[in-house]
């Protein structure tokens, strides 16, 4: 078998091990002087199935919805899905104080700004 290969074999050409549908969750992003607030829509995702990763200015959100399927389906309009979305966040975020809560299928992520980066009022002294 010295002939030319049909496809070039590449090292690190990893086979995909799952075929779950991927979707991009819709998000709202708000900001005030203290924090950046992110809302992401992930209906049906349990809180244990959400991963939030902040690394070197990259924020990755991922949430997997796996629905229990019993009985005979009359119709099925939505199924299992992996919500995935990445953002770049400023380095001024205080990673240790990031908080997240999940309510009604909406993930709320609070990204507090570090003290040093908050806007400061400079007082002008009378000379």
């Amino acid at each position, binding site marked *: *078998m010295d002939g030319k*290969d*049909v*496809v070039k*074999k590449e090292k690190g*050409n990893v*086979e*995909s091990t799952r*075929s779950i549908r*991927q*979707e*991009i969750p*819709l*998000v*709202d*992003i*708000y*900001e*005030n002087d203290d924090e*950046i*607030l992110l*809302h992401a*829509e*992930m*209906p*049906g*995702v*349990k809180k244990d199935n959400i991963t939030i990763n902040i690394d070197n200015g990259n924020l990755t959100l991922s949430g997997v919805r796996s*629905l229990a*399927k*019993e*009985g*005979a*389906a*009359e*119709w*099925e*309009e*939505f*199924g299992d899905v992996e919500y995935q979305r990445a953002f770049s966040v400023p380095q001024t975020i205080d990673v240790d104080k990031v908080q997240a809560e*999940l309510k*009604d*299928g*909406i993930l709320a992520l609070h990204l507090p700004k570090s003290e040093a980066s908050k806007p400061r009022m400079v007082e002008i002294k009378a000379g």
Partner: protein
Amino acid sequence: MIARISDLDRMFDAMGLLRGRLDNVFNEFDRSVTYGPHWSAASNYPQTNLFDKGDHFELAAKIPGMSKEDVEVKIQGNYLEISGTRNVTAPEGYRVHRNELGSASFTRSLTLPAEVASNKVSATLKDGILVLTMPKSEAAKPRQISIK
């Protein structure tokens, strides 16, 4: 020759992957442009799943961002109506950078495959999914027939 076949296999895998990506392109395309909940643009109703579990039906509806006060369910015989509203307002004192989750209201009516006992229906709302458990009415229940 075996090596060849596995290579072919891999190539078809790659093609399948590409097809999946292309399928997604259309979904994502429409999303990045409309910036709205994807069900509000074309069809103003939430997606649902209906399962027949023998003596009852189970309906799941995807309604993220709504609390139980925002949703109303009406059942009569085999007719089901779900309506709800979602209000998305920016929290006070925050600037808005991106707003993809929109406010919306919907009404969706469905015809169930059989009549249900409307007084025994229970509804739960968890993680943005409304689940209705609807026991079938006596006449519609499956029955074991004993052979004499």
